[in-house]
């Protein structure tokens, strides 16, 4: 009986422990318990994964901070060693849009006009036309003020590996356009869906390996909506109308749908 009560007390503290919202002595006790209890460890891991989503979506950390970190790393491999990595700031990769190239150009231009030396930014265009640089800065400044989602969608639309899918319905007459990347990242970019009352929502479903899996809530009057699915076994999309908050499994006919022939 006492063991069961004690374990319940540990379980009660798991949420607060995941948020670092416990006293130091409680933290130590919880750590010891979690190390031994797989049930609590699994629940804690689940809480921590959810908590990580509460964190900021700030996308990039500054280059000069990386330099400071790199300076603290002892005995790192040098350029002369086989298989070595060069000590330069992590370059953006994985995106093929012009946005990435222009962002790198902005870094180079800012470095040219900055009073502090940024050793890790390559100054490849020292002799470039100043007027070209200034127009580049103006364009990039405008880009940087744009919402990240718009920029991500633009990148997806211009990516040759992106798959554009048109969901439709002869019954509703509505359409929706989805861009799906090879890694499973996707965006509902356009649609002609009728706005719903505030207590209703559209919900996106993906058909994967014969199963219908929720890909996210779109809202009652969706704008551009990002989502992510497992691309392996992907065979189609459907959008249904549901009650606010969505459902785990729909019993409604799709408003629009698309199946991979």
């Amino acid at each position, binding site marked *: 009986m006492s063991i069961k009560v004690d374990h319940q007390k540990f*379980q*009660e*503290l798991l*949420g*607060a422990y*995941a*948020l*670092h*919202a*416990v*006293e130091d002595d409680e933290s130590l006790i919880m750590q010891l318990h979690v190390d031994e209890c797989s049930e609590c*460890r699994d629940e804690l*891991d*689940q*809480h*921590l*994964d*959810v*908590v*990580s*989503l*509460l*964190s*900021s*979506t*700030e*996308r*990039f*950390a*500054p280059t000069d*901070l*990386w330099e*400071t*970190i*790199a300076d*603290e*790393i002892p*005995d*790192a*491999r040098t350029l002369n060693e086989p298989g*070595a*990595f*060069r*000590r*330069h700031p*992590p370059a*953006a990769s994985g995106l093929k849009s012009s946005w990435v190239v222009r962002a790198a150009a902005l870094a180079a231009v800012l470095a040219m006009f900055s009073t502090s030396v940024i050793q890790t930014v390559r100054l490849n265009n020292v002799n470039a036309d100043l007027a070209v640089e200034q127009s580049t800065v103006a364009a990039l400044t405008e880009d940087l003020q744009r919402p990240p989602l718009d920029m991500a969608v633009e990148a997806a639309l211009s990516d040759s590996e992106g798959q554009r899918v048109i969901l439709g319905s002869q019954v509703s007459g509505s359409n929706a356009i989805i861009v799906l990347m090879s*890694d*499973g990242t996707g965006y509902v970019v356009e649609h002609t869906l009728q706005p719903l009352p505030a207590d209703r929502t559209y919900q*996106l479903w993906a058909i994967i390996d014969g199963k219908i899996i*929720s890909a*996210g*809530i779109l809202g009652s009057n969706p704008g551009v909506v990002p*989502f*992510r*699915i*497992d691309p392996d076994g992907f065979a189609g999309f459907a959008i249904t109308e549901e009650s606010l*908050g*969505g459902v*785990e499994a729909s019993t409604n006919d799709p408003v629009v749908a698309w199946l991979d022939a």
Partner: protein
Amino acid sequence: METTARQEDIELVGQIAAGHEGALAEVYRRHGGPVLGLAKRLLRDPNLAEEVVQEVILRLWNNPEKFDGTRGSLRSFLLAHTHGRSIDLIRSESARRIREERDAQLAVEAGLSLEEEVWEMALADHVRQALGELDEGVRQAIELAYFGGHTYREVAELLNTPEGTIKSRIRSGLQSLNGLLTKAGLAPVS
């Protein structure tokens, strides 16, 4: 795809353990932004926040074996360390001045302004929506604990609510968030 990302995390940390600085640079590229954003939000001091980022990244370099790829993503691991270190700073004697200023901001009446600040954060829309679907008491408890850096006992005092209720609200709130984010296709697979 989540499995692929998890495998990449494990491979990167393996390369870090082998002494490849480029692998650490890649970790910084992938996760430095959210780590810095969280530290800045908690500490409200960009310089302190950068110090925390340094500590977290260097801790990974010095102790890569602490990351267990079977127990969650590298990002959640780094963010948990960031949050913990930031909370340590907030609660430490050396940061007493910071805490006094923050407590003044985070009084019960200002609990509402904290809520506004949370909404103003660069949260993903679906995360923001999921937070909004929680009961007010549950959401306040989570916000005061996570973003305010308060222990559950302090939250109970701030909200004039029993400690047991606060513990329960935090735990059930996180479980509800997991359900809501899973529906939105956002909750990572542990």
